[in-house]
């Protein structure tokens, strides 16, 4: 909660400089970004399963009434069709926000995403492209979701060239990054940690704004260890940093924000400064995106490292309902990793 409040305070400072801002949760922030996108361009459509009435997480509430059934609509239950339909719309000159109901259900669309969406520009030498597409999906642990409502799937897609992957940590980031994602002329996968829809609240400017894609955010400055994470993990890293500060260990917390293409400069500058790095994500440790970060960071920062790069992630099991608190990379595990890395 401390971390969440700190976030809210930081963005409030920013908001105070602007005209108007409101304290809203991440779900509402996403709703506003989509509303702005639909308003900005008549040829933008938003669709998915149950999107019409407002969506199972209420992210699209009010949008069908405002923009009409042709532009905000339900699709049949079919993820491969959902994404492919969007490809056709994009190529015909429309911008598409396609909602997959849970990231756990994105896999039927894997072929269309990897073989079509990601490759459309390359195989046509930019004659056509799916740059107008944003695929949104709720991801990550929610407390009771088990194997099929809790997955973090960014690693599967990070391996495919041509895809941009963005994960917000709160309402201010969600609205700005989603707006940027819609404007971006590359296809974007926008994964929204579902537990943050209601839990993450902050000051969000009322007007439209964008945050840069491909840029990480140093959420907290520090000197001893660089913690890197995204989404739900950011608040946990901040809480762990508070605890470690009590043990005289100063943590620099980085929210990667964009998984691909990730901000190499910010991360390497930080690790060269601190000499120690802990990477954390909910997805299982093997071949999780932390593996790619770890390999890249050690290539670039080897001579600056005082300890091996540590990863605090889910175990290599499926997401268990009963053992969620032990499976997740929790605050105590982050604190432990910080201490181990510090005293290597």
């Amino acid at each position: 909660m401390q971390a969440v409040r700190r976030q809210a305070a930081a963005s409030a400072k920013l908001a105070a400089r602007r005209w108007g801002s409101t304290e809203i949760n991440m779900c509402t922030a996403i709703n506003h970004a989509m509303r702005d996108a639909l308003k900005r361009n008549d040829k933008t459509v938003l669709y998915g399963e149950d999107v019409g009435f407002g969506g199972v997480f209420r992210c699209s509430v009010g949008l069908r009434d405002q923009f009409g059934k042709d532009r905000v609509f339900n699709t049949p239950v079919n993820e491969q069709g959902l994404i492919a339909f969007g490809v056709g719309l994009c190529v015909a000159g429309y911008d598409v926000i396609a909602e997959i109901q849970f990231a756990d259900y994105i896999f039927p669309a894997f072929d269309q995403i990897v073989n079509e969406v990601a490759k459309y520009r390359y195989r046509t030498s930019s004659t056509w492209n799916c740059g107008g597409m944003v695929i949104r999906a709720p991801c990550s642990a929610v407390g009771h979701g088990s194997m099929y409502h809790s997955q973090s799937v960014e690693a599967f897609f990070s391996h495919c060239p041509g895809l941009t992957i963005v994960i917000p940590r709160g309402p201010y980031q969600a609205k700005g990054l989603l707006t940027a994602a819609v404007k971006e002329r590359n296809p974007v996968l926008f994964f929204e940690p579902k537990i943050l829809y209601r839990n993450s609240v902050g000051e969000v400017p009322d007007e439209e704004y964008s945050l840069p894609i491909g840029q990480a955010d140093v959420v907290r400055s520090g000197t001893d260890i660089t913690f890197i994470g995204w989404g739900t993990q950011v608040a946990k890293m901040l809480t762990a940093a508070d605890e470690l500060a009590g043990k005289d260990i100063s943590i620099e917390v980085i929210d990667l924000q964009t998984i691909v293409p990730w901000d190499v400069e910010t991360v390497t500058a930080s690790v060269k400064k601190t000499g120690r790095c802990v990477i954390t994500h909910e997805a299982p440790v093997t071949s999780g995106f932390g593996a790619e970060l770890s390999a890249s960071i050690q290539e670039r920062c080897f001579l600056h490292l005082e300890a091996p790069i540590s990863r605090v992630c889910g175990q290599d099991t499926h997401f268990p309902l009963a053992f969620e608190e032990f499976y997740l990379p929790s605050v105590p595990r982050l604190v432990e990793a910080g201490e181990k890395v510090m005293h290597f």
Partner: protein
Amino acid sequence: MRRFVCKAAGWAQKRWNGHQIADGPDGQVWNIDFTGHNSLTDDLVFRSSADHPQPLFRVLDPRGGVVGETPQMDEELARKMNTAMIRQSVMDGILYEAQRQGRISFYMTNYGEEGTQIGSVSALQPHDMVYAQYREAGVLLYRGYPINDMIAQCIGTIEDKGKGRQMPIHYGSPEHFYQTISSPLGTQIPQAAGAGYAMRLDGEDRVCICYFGDGAASEGDFHAALNFAATLGSRTIFFCRNNGYAISTPAVDQYAGDGIYARGIGYGIRSIRIDGNDTLAVYSATKKARELSIEHNCPVLIEAMTYRGGHHSTSDDSSRYRQKSEVDQWTTGSNPIKRFSKYLESKGWWTSDDEKQVRDATRKEVMVALQRQESLGSWPVETLIEDVFAEPTKHLLKQRQELLEHMEEYAEHYKKKSH
């Protein structure tokens, strides 16, 4: 109820009895309109589409004599169509042999399916978007795509607008409204549903046609496509080339129902089965399909029954799984070019001299283009990282730099130069 009423024609009408059933469900919550039909029955009967095979719509008999109503078609159009069919066939012959000689890496012919391709594209407007599978080169050729450019793509020369990235026959052309071919089967079908939806929203005089084979119609993408197009109202013509084979897999291993036609019916789509080797029937059906799609803002399905005259590709030898007698029977017994030529001859629009002229001219054109393309270089290695994203990322620029430096230092190991 459905926003776009697309009632399937067919055997439901047999059960109409003219009475409003007073004590049966009205079907509204299920999106089923029982008006004029029984909504209840005492019959414990299970039905299958295989019980009701749909006949083929046709205009010409197998030899090319007129037995149905001919569409309105002038001499100029008819000659253009026949010329295109023959040109495609001649080009196929030369490029198939070129692959055998190692001059191109891979090729797919269109033998026997010229009628499905040219008959359909000629009934559309030039700006109607085409999503195809891979055996529709005649569609692109008819629209005026240069043979030179096709061969450039097959070899991957500097004149290939695809920058040499894809296998041969993966053509595409924005000027001719033909989407670039991708190898995964059936992925284009739901994309065409999306494009047709865009066309409905745009409200222009435009449709999207999507070609696919009997095998591709088994893919999940096919089912997704039809259901989406029907429920959301897409101006998409789904054109199935049922040529009896998916590589070596015959139709008996591909489906058990009444072909792909019955699936259209199943999804609530206006559907027709036609003789795909009867170019006039293909033309009539496609023209009508286009009218229906625009008038009713709905998809239409055409199942064109045809036969794959050649092998699946240059990587296939179909004598391993089918009899030559069967191939000969179809090639002579139901030949689209011969049937259409016969019709044109009967109208005084075509002679065997015309055929010879087209064949000779095309042969020369293909040979000249092939020789020319073989003399051209390919795209520079620098282009490797282009078009992955709208602009190359820093990651990619770094990777390219490393590759070029490597190629410079180890130049003797590589055929291509880095610059």
